[in-house]
Each structure stands twice: as C-alpha cells, then as structure tokens.
C-alpha cells in the first residue's frame, strides 16, 4: 500500500489577468488523507479542478496511477477513479437518492430502466458505509449532511479511488462530522486516497495524515501532519503570523439595548427570552437544526411571529417585515450568503447600497450617485474588501470578500442591534479574524451584537455570553470565559422527553 497514486508537477494555470497556479506540485498516496490548505483564492480549487479534468493546465504534468495524462477530460478522470465532491452540492433535488446516484449511467433493462437493480446496488453501497438513508427518498427532503453522504456514495458507486472533498464539513453538525469522519476512515482503510480541503483547521487532527499548503497560487510546503504545529500551518497559509485567532476586547457592560420576550414562531422558535447589553457580544450556540437561524429570521421579521415582544433601547418595537426591523435599527447578516445575502448578478456597489438606498436617495427616491459612491468606498475601506473596483459582479468575489459585502451593507447605517448568522462559514483564517474585529468594533461602539455560530471554539472565543439552543428552545445560558465545550454540548443536546411522537 501507500504507493503514489496522484502526482502533479510544475502545474501552471493562468486566467486572463490572474496567474491562478504558478509551478505547483502535489502528491497523493493511496490510503491517506491529504489536507490541501490555503486561504481563499490560494488556488486549491483550481488545482483540484485540473486533477478532475474540469480545467486544462498550461504547463506541468499530471500522473494518475502511474499514467500520464495530457488532455484529461472530466469523463476520463471519472473513469480512472477521480471523484470530486463540491462545496455546493450538485444534486437533483426532485429525484430520489438512487436516481441521483445513477444519474447519467442508468442501468437499462430491455425496454425501460432496471429500477430494482439500481435500488439494490444503491442500498448495498449505502449499507456498506453504514449510512442510514432510504434509497427511495427524494434528495431534496434529506438534510444537507445526508445529501453530502449521498454524494460520497455516488462517488464510490463509480469506484472512485481518488476522492476530493471541498469543504465537506461546512454545513454539518458535530455529530454529522463524526459520521463523515467514520466514513473517511473506512475509505482510507480501503485504500482510497482522499484530498481534504477545509478551513476548519481544528478538525484536521482527527483524520489527516499529511498536509499540502498553498498560498497565492504557489506551493508553499507539505509534510506529515503530526510533525507540524498548528501555528506553523497557519503561518504558512497566511504568510504572516496571526497573533490571536480569537481577538477579544473587554468593554464595560452598559445599559440594556435589546430584549426579546416570549418569542414564538413555529416549532423551531419556542418561548425565546433574552437580552443584550451595551458592550457585549452574545453568542447563540447549538446544533444544526436547533432553531437558531429561525429565531434570527423571526426577530428580523422575515418569518411571521406567533407571539413575542421586542424592545430596542427599552422601547417596544413592532416588527412584521425586514423593513420594520431596519427602521428600528435591527439588522441581520444572513447565514447563506449565496442564497440570502447577495445579489450575485449585481455589482458590489449595488449590493452595498441596497438596504441603504434611503440614505442616498432624495425625497423622490432618486439616487444621488455621489453619496452612493462615498458610502461604498467607505465600506470597502473599512472592511478591507479586496477588489479592483466596486463595479464588478459580487458573485465573482472570493467567499471571504463576499461575506464582507454581506456584513458591510449593514454597517453603513447606524443600527442598534446587529445579528450575524454564521458569518465565518467557509472563509479563511485571515478573513475570519477581520470579521471578529468588526464585531468587536461594534461592541465597543455600544451596539448590541448577536453572533450565531456552529463552531464552538469561535463562539467561546468571541462572545461574552452564550445562549445555547436545542430544538427551538433556549436550554442554557453560560459565560464564555467560564464554560467548557462539554457544558455547551450538554445544553445543546437537552432534548425534551420525546414520548410525544414527532409529527
């Protein structure tokens, strides 16, 4: 075992105006998990797209299982056993698990499709991996984690020997990640080579054997994970030392700014009570599906409330739609930036200005382009958004910079309460710290900051007080500096007695 199965040497790839890869090398052995690390825009995805045949390289050699490929096509790559699982899942939501797994290579009977054979095969693979998934279920009905497992199963059903996973855990809960790791370990034992791309460095220790680090399109270093400290890895990735992963500023606790009383909105938001004071960041922790996002959406007026009162600076406010919330100084930077946060076809300028048009318009609703430009330039400068100008499509920015636009559009106005829902998901270490600093800045200004996150180290490192949610209720409240992960987890799994059947 452990022979080299993928060897890429001196890979160079340019796109007009950008040199995405500059003489990069990469090696993968069978039966190992290789972490491919680097900041957003370091060239990881480009390199993997070359390996899977999506892009052709300009220079260099690609060798898979000892055979050199000059013009690798995606189909060829698939045939030799290279499978890639993208960050954004590529599934047909309205087809069943089996149909998705066999998409494009359906088993035909004499006249029609041989459904039973496909189902049997799908079931065999799913069982083999101990995945508790019904092959007949519609993929759209499955939670994201299960969908991802279906992708893995699909890859294995085509006998993948090289499995590339791009940010596989970004949408998973701790428990689901454990499941994923179990599967990865099994694949490893079976002799698969796995390329693992992730920004969540703390999870590497559980599965990774070796790491390759890239920065700005260049190969930096590689080596055994056990022989590298986390600090070396980060320094190599970022190219500078990050002093504090979780910068914290101390502020005196002031007046009560924000209060929610008896908030109810559907099954996932039940009897929510909490308040936020000046000079503190309140974190909301919990497992996936605990009702955190639903709570923020109900507060912001996106989803209807059944009951509940909201107070800003002691005054009751009525919020029935996002407009009400914004008018009352409550704003939300939503969780899924592609789906909820950005108009990807519009420019950065248009995105930044969208919720602030009232500030840049005259009384007839005509936009003052000078004011608009000023507002955007300030946001770009304050948030260190890396872009040549504000006119380019926001969809073309890297993840971290997209997130900064999502956040930035709310910081242009004077709000009293800023809610961040998973603001650091899928962005690199450096950008994360910038987002944390931003939250700290708001905290210093006396603005109430609510910080929803699934990553426990980050909630514990940034928030002052943490509310833990489980199953639509707040099950615990802890002080960040006095608590432990175990305590939070205990509250996060404090399910009600489930004698009553779930509907």
């Amino acid at each position: 075992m452990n022979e080299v199965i993928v060897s890429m040497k001196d890979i160079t790839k340019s796109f007009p105006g950008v040199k995405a890869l500059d003489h990069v090398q990469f090696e993968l052995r069978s039966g190992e998990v290789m972490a491919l690390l680097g900041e957003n825009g370091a060239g990881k995805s480009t390199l993997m797209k070359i390996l899977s045949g999506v892009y052709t390289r300009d220079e260099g050699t690609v060798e898979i299982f000892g055979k050199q490929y000059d013009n690798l096509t995606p189909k060829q790559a698939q045939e030799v056993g290279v499978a890639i699982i993208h960050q954004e899942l590529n599934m047909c939501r309205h087809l069943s698990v089996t149909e998705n797994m066999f998409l494009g290579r359906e088993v035909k009977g004499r006249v029609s499709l041989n459904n039973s054979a496909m189902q049997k095969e799908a079931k065999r693979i799913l069982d083999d991996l101990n995945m508790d998934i019904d092959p007949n279920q519609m993929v759209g009905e499955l939670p994201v984690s299960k969908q991802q497992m279906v992708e893995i199963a699909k890859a294995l059903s085509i006998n993948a020997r090289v499995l590339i996973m791009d940010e596989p855990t970004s949408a998973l809960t701790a428990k689901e990640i454990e499941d994923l790791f179990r599967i990865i370990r099994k694949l490893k034992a079976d002799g698969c080579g796995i390329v693992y791309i992730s920004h969540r460095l703390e999870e590497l220790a559980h599965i990774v054997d070796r790491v390759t680090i890239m920065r700005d399109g260049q190969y930096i270093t590689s080596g055994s994970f056990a022989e590298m400290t986390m600090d070396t890895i980060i320094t190599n990735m970022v190219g500078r030392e990050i002093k504090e992963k979780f910068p914290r500023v101390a502020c005196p606790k002031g007046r009560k700014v924000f209060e929610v009383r008896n908030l109810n909105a559907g099954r996932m938001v039940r009897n929510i009570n909490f308040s936020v004071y000046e000079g503190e960041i309140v974190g909301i922790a919990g497992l996936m599906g605990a009702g955190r996002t639903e709570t923020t959406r109900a507060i912001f007026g996106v989803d209807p409330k059944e009951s509940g009162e909201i107070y800003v600076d002691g005054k009751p406010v009525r919020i029935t739609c996002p407009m009400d919330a914004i008018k009352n100084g409550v704003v939300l930077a939503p969780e899924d930036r592609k789906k909820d946060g950005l108009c990807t076809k519009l420019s950065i300028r248009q995105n930044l200005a969208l919720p602030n048009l009232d500030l840049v318009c005259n009384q007839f609703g005509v936009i003052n382009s000078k004011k608009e430009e000023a507002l955007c330039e300030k946001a770009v400068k304050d948030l260190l958004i890396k872009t040549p100008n504000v006119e380019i499509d926001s969809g073309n920015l890297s993840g971290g910079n997209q997130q900064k636009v999502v956040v930035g559009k709310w910081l242009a106005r004077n709000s009293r309460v800023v809610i961040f829902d998973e603001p650091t998901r899928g962005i690199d270490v450096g950008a994360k710290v910038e987002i944390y600093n931003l939250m700290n800045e708001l905290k210093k200004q006396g603005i109430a900051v609510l910080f929803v996150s699934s990553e426990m180290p980050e909630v514990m490192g940034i928030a002052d007080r943490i509310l833990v949610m489980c199953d639509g209720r707040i099950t615990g409240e802890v002080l960040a500096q006095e608590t432990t992960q175990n305590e939070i987890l205990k509250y996060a799994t404090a399910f009600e007695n489930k004698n009553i059947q779930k509907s």
Partner: protein
Amino acid sequence: MNNKQQSPLKKLLGIRGMGAALTAFVGLIIIYIAFGVINPAVFSGQNILNLLRSMSKYLLIGIAQSYVLITGNIDLSIGSVAGMSAMITATLMVGGMHPVPAILITLLCCLVIGVINGYLVGKFKLPPFIATLGTMFVARGIAYMVNGNRNTDAIATGVGKETGDAFQNFFYYGKTFGVYNTFWIALIVFVIFFFLLSKTRTGRHIYAIGSNVEAAKLSGVNVVATTIKTYLVSAGCACLVGWILCAQAGMGNMEAGNMYEMYGVAAGVIGGVSPLGGTGILLGTFAGAAVWQTLENGLNMIGAQVGIQRVVIGVIVVAAVLLDVVVRNGQFGKRKKKN
C-alpha cells in the same frame, strides 16, 4: 479607487448591460445598411419616419415586458391588455364619449389587470407564466365582450369627424417637428422609465429582486409592492399601445395587439434583457425594438413574403441570444475561476 479618473466614455461603457445594448445597436446598423443596399428606398426619409413610428409600438411593449423580465417574471397578458385598451377606448368613443375621459377610463381598466397580475405573482407567489396566461385570456375575453363580440364602427361615427381626427392625429397620424407623434410619445415614455429604472430606488429594487429575491427581501426591499409596480408599468404601457392601435385603425379591433407580449420579449431579449432577471437596460430594449422593426420593414421593402419574414425574424432572435450566451460564457469561463 481609480474610479474617479475614468473618462466619462469609459464610465458609460462600464454600465452593466451597456455591452449587450451597444451590440444590438451595431447589429441594427448592419441590418439597416444591408437592406438599404438591396433596396435604396429603405434609406428614404419617408421610410425612416415610418420606421420610427412603427417601432414605437414595439418599444412601448418592450418597455412593458422588460420591467417585468428584469424582476425575473414575465407578463403574457400585455398583448391582450393592448387589445382590451383599443376596444374599450373605441367603444366609448363610438358611444359618443370625448376621447379624454375615454382614455382615462381605459387606463384605469388596464391598471386593474396590472394590479391583479402583481398580486397573483408578488403576493400569492403564483408562477408568473401561469398567472399572466390566465389574465391574458381574461383581458382578450373582455376585449371581445365590450362591444358584443364585434369590432367597433369607426370612432368618427360617435365623436364626430373633427374629434375623431384629432384623436387619430395625436396618437398616430400627426407630426411634431417633422416626426410622427407616436415616436415622440414612445420616446418620452422611454426616457421616463429609463430614468426610473436606472436612477431611482424602485429601479434598484427591481434589479435586486431579479437577481436574488431572498437577498432583496432580507435587505428590506418590499418585494410585493415592487412586483406590483412592475406589472402596473407593463399594463400602463400596454394600454398606451392599445390607444395607438385604436388611433391607427380609427376603430376598435378585437384582435388588436395579438402576440405583442412576445414582441415585447423579443425586443427585450435582443437588447440584452435576460429573461432570468437581474440584467439588462432599457437602452437595449430600445435597440431591440428598432432591430425588430427594421427587420420587418426591410424584409417588406425587399419584397419578402410573410412566411419568409417570420422565419428570418425567428432565426435572428435566437441567433442574437445565442451569440450573447456564447460570448458571455467565454468571458465567464475565464473570469470566474480565480480560486
């Protein structure tokens, strides 16, 4: 940022959607010259005037459809609304009503259809294709019903020859500064709606909804109200087209405006308005309407038969969009892949 040093021309070219619009204008010039070489009468002053007048209808219906397309929706009812407008106006005038109240009453009726479309799509989340398919039939049905399933008599029989002529001249046969009024009307409407779409808050909201309705909602955009506004614009423009058709014929024709909703789509799409929403500018629609009319006019002038005309126009619409897709994909494929 180096934005400020950019020359005004560069800035103009930098406006998103400008590329597609300019491409359509270039195509327009090529088509026009090509026809003119075959038949020099295409270049005659009278033909240019005719061209401007007949493209006005397509421009107005194109503006109507573009507003809705940019939000990612579609309005199939506008052709029928134009027909309804022509029939109601004509019927009222044949009955002896003065043109001014007649057109105002008509406008009101048309806007009601717009509000219904807006509510069905914006508030009740019906697929716009279905909702406006329904109102398309309803509006056409009303066009038939207003005069008891018959075309109207000449409007002059009701309001008298003088008033009837005044109405027809105002919307169709009269000229101001040597150009037909129809074109001036369309141009004024174009300028107003161009401004609304590119320079105002509502315009920005229209683009935002077309690009990502969830993000727009979470940014405090009132999606329902904005959607209703776009359908009001489309119904209003369609109503205006109805008056023009009525003035042109001097009577109400139950089939007036037939297929116009699709001409609107064509004008928009040729000019770079994406039916998927979020992109396109009205200048493109202007070019698209002109291309469409130049094709019709030119094919007529070189003596092509109706069948051939349709085929050529159909092929050109698809080719225009195909070209756009190919060019854009080329660019996208290269630009997007930074990481």
